[in-house]
């Protein structure tokens, strides 16, 4: 059952990811990307990481994708206006990426002989995550505030029109 679910979700994720790349209209790309995110969230659930699955939906599909959408609309890009690369360059791109994939997959196979811990249901639960986050990862948590602050300041600074 889980295996089939994994496969279905996986195939969905891959297909929609491919559509993200190959669809001409940016809006469609965004939508396909959302779909991918959902599929990935599904996989999270399979991995017993329900909280993350939800966060994934909220943050990515909900926030980031909206941001994208917003920008696309703002810049009025919802047309298939993108000039195409030459076939050669596209081919090279696909080949390069494919090559990398082959290498990557090839090099990562055989990972199953790793020692695997007995499975625990608690790992992905919110209280468990919370404990780890606010005990072990408190400092990164705080520091990421600075990251956001910096990003925010930066985005604002760039985004605002200079009053000259």
């Amino acid at each position: 059952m889980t295996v089939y679910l994994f496969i279905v979700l996986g195939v969905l994720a891959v297909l929609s990811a491919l559509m993200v790349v190959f669809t001409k209209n940016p809006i469609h790309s965004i939508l396909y990307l959302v779909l991918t995110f959902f599929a990935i969230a599904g996989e999270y659930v399979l991995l017993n990481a329900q909280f993350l699955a939800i966060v994934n939906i909220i943050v990515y599909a909900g926030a980031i994708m909206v941001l994208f959408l917003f920008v696309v609309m703002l810049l009025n890009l919802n047309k298939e206006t993108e000039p195409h690369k030459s076939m050669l360059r596209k081919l090279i791109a696909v080949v390069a990426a494919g090559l990398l994939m082959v290498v990557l997959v090839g090099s990562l196979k055989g990972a199953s002989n790793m020692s695997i811990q007995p499975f625990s249901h608690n790992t992905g639960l919110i209280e468990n995550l919370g404990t780890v986050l606010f005990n072990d990862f408190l400092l990164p948590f705080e520091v990421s505030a600075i990251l956001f602050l910096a990003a925010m300041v930066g985005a604002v600074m760039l985004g605002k029109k200079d009053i000259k």
Partner: protein
Amino acid sequence: MNTLLILSALGVIALFAEIFRFRKGLFPLILLGLAAAFIFTANQYNHPHVFFGMMNFDNYAVIFSCSILVIAFLWFMMAKNYFLQETSVTDHFSLILFSLVGAVVMVSFSNLTMLFLGIEILSVSVYVLAASDKSNVMSNESGFKYFLMGSFATGFLLFGITLIYGVTGSFDLATIHTQLTTTNEKGLVLAGILLLLVGLSFKSSLAPFHFWAPDVYEGAPTTVTTYMATVVKTAAFAAFFRLFSTCFTAAGNWSDILWWMVVLTLFIGNVSAVRQKSLKRLLAYSSVAHAGYIAIAIVSMSATSASAIFYYTLTYSISSITAFTILFIVSRYKGSKDISAFEGMSKANPLLAFAMTVAMLSLAGIPPTAGFFAKYYVFLTAINHGNTLLVLLAVIAALIGIYYYFRVIIAMYFKPEQQLVPIQVGPLHRTVLIITTVLTLLLGLFPNLVLGWI
């Protein structure tokens, strides 16, 4: 930890300064704050602290933090005028201060999470800063390229972290180290290490992941370029070395790949610089090349590597600040960043020319400047580690380097006078140049001043 707090606080204060019309006082405050941070950091020397298992303020971290703070201090003095003319000086300053937080995190992390966050804080700030000259397409392009490639590289870095995590089950450096010595899983480990290598090489602009550097350096505002060439580079290498020396010394055979990358970097950086017209771009390539020299110390992982990297980054940064400051002054004055803008400078501004000469000699690695000792020390480390061939190649690359650094000197001392009007150098810039020039010579003559600390 205090360092982080002070820097973050300064950043926040800088943000509010705009609102409270505090711009005038901000600058001294920042310098004061940096000085305070320096003192606090320096105090921790020989008193290693581990914070939340995430940051380890050992001597390595202290020294590099201090180095970064000193460079940042000089940088602020250099960049003040530029940003004061911008509309959003406070934003700039706070971004720099935040990025300093990232840099400090990068030199002191003991957990991959912190490394990742540190890099990102630094990067995100610098992406913005690179693009901060909003009306300038060059600047935009620079920021855009940097961002695009940076976030792309982040993906690889992240993949690498994940794979390492997958094998070891931890993000903690010490745990990873012990796990890696016991695990029999090789493929994932090696892939993880290599991807981390890629990510960090990107940040430290090693070939073939250096492509962004010349373009970004050239397009970004000169002050930001300076910052990238100095603080960012220092932090990147400190993190690079920290990670690889603590975790991966025994695991995986990555040094031969890095060996090739270093060779590639040395030659691409130096050779490409030969035909540049724009001094800024030349310095960008030179920065790439210097990354190659520094990375020699990483390839030759040994007891002296850390101090070699420290000495090299410090002296390189100091010389770079001199060079970029003068470039900044001259390009302001003459409206050109080309080498030709320097023609005849030795007559109009002999002292400026002298400072530039010292900087160029240092970058070229000619005694008695600090740059020489830095190279020497790196070479020493490498030969000690048995990397003699690499050193020989580096020597050849250094020769090419001399060629283009001397083009600048030649322009200043030989080329006919364009305009005889001396360039006015502001007091701050003057101070910076005096400090950096003196430091370049002083550290070259007495490397002991900083060498014994690490």
